[in-house]
């Protein structure tokens, strides 16, 4: 039996005492998870600061604050930092903390690689951000790096090296998560009994392994075009600028699902907890995530409807894209059905989850509209698109991360956060984020292109409203920071092991805060303790 092996050595030591030993040399999934989350929060504020510059310049017509080139650096950096620095590491951090706890594993399968995949990131972002202080400035060709424009920049080599590092980090993280989920589950934790969050990450990890090398290939071709006289994307040398867009979006579309599938998982954990009712249609939820992941590989050119694709291609990518609405709809309907007939309370994680369902769905609606190629000829590259992807990424991905933080922080810190301040953070965020992004739909429909530093006075009012919402939303996140710091260091309210009345799953069977080592001995699994898979359907 497994028990015999673990009794051979005394492994019940705590965390290393030295700061350097504990944090820099860590191989502990909880500490590395914490590092990821702190890193992500830092990047969230840095990327947010860039967004504040953008919204400040767009506050009214005329150029008041920055030069147009610097404005482009801000839009580019805002996207790169938020995508690769804030959203993705936050999900990896959550996976690090929660996947072993949720499947009854003692740690991640590959702890040293875990350390490496985290510690690459600060260096990658140091390099990326340092370009802002160099002569010639940072990247200003958009996060999509379309050539020939992106090759006009002086910082190409730095940016591409940074992206390679981020890619290596992501791939290692993904390998680790797959290895952990497939090999380290406690006996009795069948695949179809796993929490939806674990399922969502398993599928996401495969997406990461599939597409990060594609991005690496695309940017390497940019690098050789810039410095080694190749002509992959140079029309004058027989290359094709559109080729880059195909390769980029073959990465890019799965990438946007990498940023939303774990969010689906989180929401599928939180809503059943606070509705006190099992998730509706567990298998359908898992199958929907898998279908969305599959479809993500065959829709990339819907980002390119205006590049002049042949009509057959436009029709194919339009139909394939529209199909995504079906599994996504299933997820939304199932979340609503989980709430129906429940016994709901509305603590902060639940509030963020409900806001997620509504606002992500609004982002989904605009996504459906964008999928219609003829209409996209108008929407494309306007603020309508900006509104769309901020609804799915801010009120989608970022809100799910906030929901997760509130949901699991009692388990991480051993303390309850301030519910009052959590709710203040929620209401302030949810109102301001709509003031920020909803008017952008109108701006786009009225004809305002994206990525412009200045605009005609017809667009003035909605831009001002949007900017006010932006500053307000930015300031609201300081409340979030305050709630976290208070919870971790100052809160007197001890968290129970099962911190939420309706919470199910293995993570709630260990003490709060979770000890440095958990599940040294695989837990004996009782099906009725699991959140999912315990009913016969």
């Amino acid at each position, binding site marked *: 039996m497994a028990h015999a092996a673990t009794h051979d050595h005394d492994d019940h030591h705590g965390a290393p005492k030295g700061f350097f030993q504990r944090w820099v040399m860590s191989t502990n999934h909880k500490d590395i998870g914490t590092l990821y989350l702190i890193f992500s929060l830092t990047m969230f504020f840095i990327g947010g600061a860039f967004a504040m510059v953008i919204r400040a310049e767009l506050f009214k017509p005329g150029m008041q604050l920055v030069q147009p080139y610097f404005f482009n650096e801000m839009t580019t950096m805002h996207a790169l930092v938020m995508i690769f620095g804030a959203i993705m590491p936050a999900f990896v951090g959550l996976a690090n903390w929660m996947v072993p706890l949720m499947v009854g594993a003692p740690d991640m399968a590959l702890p040293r690689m875990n350390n490496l995949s985290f510690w690459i990131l600060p260096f990658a972002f140091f390099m990326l951000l340092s370009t802002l202080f160099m002569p010639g400035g940072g990247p200003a*060709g958009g996060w999509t790096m379309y050539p020939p424009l992106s090759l006009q920049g002086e910082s190409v080599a730095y940016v591409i090296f940074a992206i390679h590092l981020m890619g290596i980090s992501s791939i290692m993280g993904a390998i680790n998560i797959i290895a952990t989920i497939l090999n380290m589950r406690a006996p009795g934790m069948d695949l179809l009994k796993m929490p939806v969050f674990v399922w969502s990450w398993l599928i996401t990890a495969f997406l990461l392994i599939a597409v990060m090398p594609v991005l690496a290939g695309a940017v390497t071709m940019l690098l050789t075009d810039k410095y080694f006289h190749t002509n992959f994307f140079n029309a004058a040398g027989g290359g094709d*600028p559109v080729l880059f867009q195909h390769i980029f979006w073959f990465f890019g579309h799965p990438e946007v699902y990498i940023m939303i599938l774990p969010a689906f998982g989180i929401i599928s954990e939180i809503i059943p907890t606070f509705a006190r009712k099992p998730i509706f249609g567990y298998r359908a939820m898992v199958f929907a995530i898998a279908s969305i992941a599959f479809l993500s590989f065959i829709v990339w050119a819907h980002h390119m409807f205006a590049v002049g694709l042949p009509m057959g291609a436009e029709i194919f990518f339009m139909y394939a894209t529209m199909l995504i609405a079906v599994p996504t709809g299933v997820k939304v309907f199932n979340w609503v059905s989980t709430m129906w007939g429940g016994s709901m309370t509305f603590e902060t994680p639940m509030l963020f989850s409900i806001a997620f369902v509504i606002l992500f769905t609004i982002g989904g609606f605009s996504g459906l509209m964008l999928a219609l190629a003829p209409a996209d000829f108008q929407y494309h590259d306007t603020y309508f698109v900006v509104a769309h992807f901020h609804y799915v990424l801010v009120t989608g991905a970022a809100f799910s991360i906030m929901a997760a933080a509130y949901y699991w922080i009692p388990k991480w810190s051993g303390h309850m956060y301030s519910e009052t301040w959590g709710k203040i953070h929620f209401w302030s965020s949810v109102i301001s984020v709509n003031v920020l992004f909803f008017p952008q739909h109108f701006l786009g429909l009225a004809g305002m*292109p994206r990525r412009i530093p200045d605009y005609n006075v017809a667009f003035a009012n909605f831009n001002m409203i949007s900017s006010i919402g932006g500053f307000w939303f930015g300031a609201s996140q300081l409340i979030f920071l305050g709630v976290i710091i208070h919870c971790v260091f100052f809160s007197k309210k001890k968290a129970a092991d099962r911190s939420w009345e309706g919470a199910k799953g293995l993570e709630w069977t260990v003490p709060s805060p979770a000890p440095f080592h958990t599940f040294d001995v695989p837990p004996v699994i009782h099906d009725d303790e699991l959140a999912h898979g315990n009913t016969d359907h």
Partner: protein
Amino acid sequence: MALFGGEAWANPVANQMNMTKGVSEWSPYAMHMVALWVCVVIGVLVFGAMFIAMFRFRKSRGAVAEKWAHSTKLEVVWTVVPVIILIFLANLATGGLTTFADTTGADMTIKVTGYQWKWRYDYVDYKGKGVDKVGFVSKLEESSDRTRQLKSNLDPEKIQVEGYNTYLLDVDKPLVVPVGVKIRFIIVGGDVIHSWWVPALGWKMDAIPGIANAAWTNIKEPGVYRGQCAELCGQDHGFMPIVVKAVPKAEFEQWLATQEDEAKIQKAAQTAQNAPAPAPQG
């Protein structure tokens, strides 16, 4: 809500909330409105159900959680119904796409070239006859350009043409086209990728180096229609507007003739200038 109702705005108006109906024979406006209403109806149903659930099934109202977590019947319904709605939308969109993609039968061809940060227009043919050397560069007009400089302290509100604010939406030399003629645009990029977009014409098309894209319009009403570059193309991406001046056919033909004459005079002048230098050309 006048700003939400369907109007054929030639140019953006203050507080405009919806897409223009456009002035061309082809317009995605109807498609857009159908999709919008489909989304609104589904949204009302789904969010309505959510709010009812949040009200009825609260613990504070004594709700006791039920145990069910599955219903094959419901799941089939909400897989099949969206598919039917999507087929309807796809059918509509395919029709729109087919008409848009058909650039044949055009009576006129204009070549559009995007440069950092201006547009060049070349008139290629009109009514089956080649146009002789009519082409020009069109860029942001001077007062907007002065005003948009960082800390210029000039007021964007003051830049007006006929009572309409044209800040960043006016050029030194507009593209002149006839109404009621199917015009084919050949769109290319001269340096980086740009995108030629006039909302009133209903589409945008990327201007890519090395690729000749085609699109068409058939403007129904005379007027001045403004647009902007829609693909990030560098520091002055926000400052390369597009102005299309649509005029009645007769007026256009007269304008075109004048332009051809001017081109001839210019060419003659150039030849005269070059005459003293007998260096063989080409």
